[in-house]
């Protein structure tokens, strides 16, 4: 493993993580790089919606304009081969690989392409390794033909929706200004019908402080999804999130999430899973994080863009144009060649990948510095606390105090 090439576009960059992150890790006898287990495939680079907060099209990055609209079959084939090569090389460490179809709006690629991709990937991945297919979609294109393709291909469905019709349509619109709620709900309704219902795996909601939090939660839960997640809008120290006031100690995002937590935590029947809360609770209890938003679990994901470039996760586009680019491409490079990239190593080093402020924080192991993209600051790169530091601290301490209060009451 130590003979892997050190590939880096950032050799000359002064922003963290620099090449010294990799050389430092290699000098640590207790560290070894971990293989990738999740592959986000950008099947289509465009979207049929024009949400005004989208990090792909509306923030600092414009590289999507250079992408082909839909991934070609030859790129699908080569991606499957590269992925299989990686899995074969590390099969002792891998039981399952996750393949997440993403975009733009991935369903724009059409049902035939989706069937083709799933078939090609399964054909290349060696026996004994499960392939866990998922798609993240706005739901507006979920008709019977599409659902049949997803069902036949065993692809789980996650739908992005921001709450009630009024709240959702404030930002999630078509280019002509028409809201997307009605079409998304038609898609969700079709998805819940037999035999597709088991595919419905989650709903993703970007936090919008203009919306009522509990009403938003109740609306999402009403669709019967087994999981809901609330995503903090992308932003960083150079380009702060909307309504951010963390520099003055404000915690508007924690203040929005806490009423939802309280309602969720006190539910009398088995609550719908809420990922951000599940993760924080598990970490407080001594468990591991399964999501990158909190905790110190190593990051093991790569993104294959529509033209075949191998990228970091595209959330980094919210930092600056091209932040996701590694310089690698599936036509030239193996997946293994990214394992010692500083941008990968930095996120597999646990506390070694955190800044001094985070390492001195008492809730470091639960927070984990928050989402990597949210730590960016022009000049110092990603070696900073999250721009949501104050919010994360308030939310985590609230959850901690809630659990402790319950237990203390039981012991009296």
């Amino acid at each position, binding site marked *: 493993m130590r003979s892997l090439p050190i590939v880096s576009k950032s050799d000359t960059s002064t922003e963290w993580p620099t090449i010294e992150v990799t050389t430092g890790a290699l000098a640590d006898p207790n560290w070894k790089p*971990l293989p*990738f*287990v*999740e592959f*986000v495939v950008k099947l289509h680079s465009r979207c049929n919606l024009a949400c005004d907060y989208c*990090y792909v099209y509306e923030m600092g990055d414009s590289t999507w304009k250079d992408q082909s609209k839909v991934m070609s079959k030859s790129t699908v084939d080569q991606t499957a081969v590269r992925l299989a090569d990686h899995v074969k090389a590390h099969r002792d460490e891998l039981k399952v690989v*996750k393949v*997440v179809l*993403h975009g733009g709006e991935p369903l724009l690629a059409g049902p035939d392409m989706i069937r083709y991709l799933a078939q090609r990937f399964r054909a290349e991945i060696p026996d004994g390794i499960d392939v866990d297919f*998922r798609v*993240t979609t706005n739901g507006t294109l979920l008709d019977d033909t599409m659902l049949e393709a997803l069902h036949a291909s065993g692809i789980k469905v*996650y739908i*992005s929706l921001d709450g009630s019709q009024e709240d959702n349509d404030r930002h999630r619109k078509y280019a002509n200004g028409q809201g997307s709620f009605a079409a998304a709900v038609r898609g969700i309704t079709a998805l819940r019908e037999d035999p597709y219902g088991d595919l419905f795996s989650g709903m*993703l909601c970007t936090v919008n402080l203009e919306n009522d939090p509990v009403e938003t939660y109740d609306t999402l839960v009403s669709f019967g999804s087994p999981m809901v997640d609330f*995503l903090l809008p992308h932003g960083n120290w150079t380009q702060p999130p909307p309504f951010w006031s963390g520099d003055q100690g404000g915690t508007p995002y924690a203040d929005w999430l806490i009423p939802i937590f309280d309602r*969720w*935590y006190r*539910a009398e*029947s*088995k*609550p719908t899973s809420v990922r951000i*809360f*599940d993760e924080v*609770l*598990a970490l*407080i*209890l*001594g*468990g*591991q*994080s*399964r*999501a*990158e*938003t909190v905790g110190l*679990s*190593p*990051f*093991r*994901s790569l993104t294959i863009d529509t033209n075949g470039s191998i990228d970091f*996760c*595209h*959330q980094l586009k919210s930092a600056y144009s091209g932040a996701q680019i590694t310089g690698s491409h599936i036509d030239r490079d193996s997946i293994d060649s990214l394992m010692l990239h500083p941008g990968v190593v930095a*996120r597999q080093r646990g506390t070694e990948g955190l800044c001094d402020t985070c390492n001195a924080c008492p809730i470091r*192991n639960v927070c984990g510095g928050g*989402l990597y993209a949210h730590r960016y600051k022009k000049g110092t790169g990603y070696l900073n606390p999250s721009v949501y530091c104050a919010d994360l601290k308030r939310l985590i301490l609230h959850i*901690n105090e809630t*659990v*402790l209060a*319950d*237990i203390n009451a*039981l*012991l009296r």
Partner: protein
Amino acid sequence: MSNDGKRDLLKKAGLTAAATVAALTLSAGAASAASSPENESGATAQISENSALGLAIARVLSDDPTSTPSGYFNS
């Protein structure tokens, strides 16, 4: 207390007492009380296994501490 230590206590105590043990370990000062026999013996039956806390405890108990989970999509 380390995460390994928390998991050991959770397993030792069993799920019915796990909430007590786990939550007490959140506070370093109460960690020693968490392993005492009287706390392991009960008083936590009111925490439903189907509650958010009960489900979280079950998840932690089933975690493989040697596994290395990945991040997951956020969009």
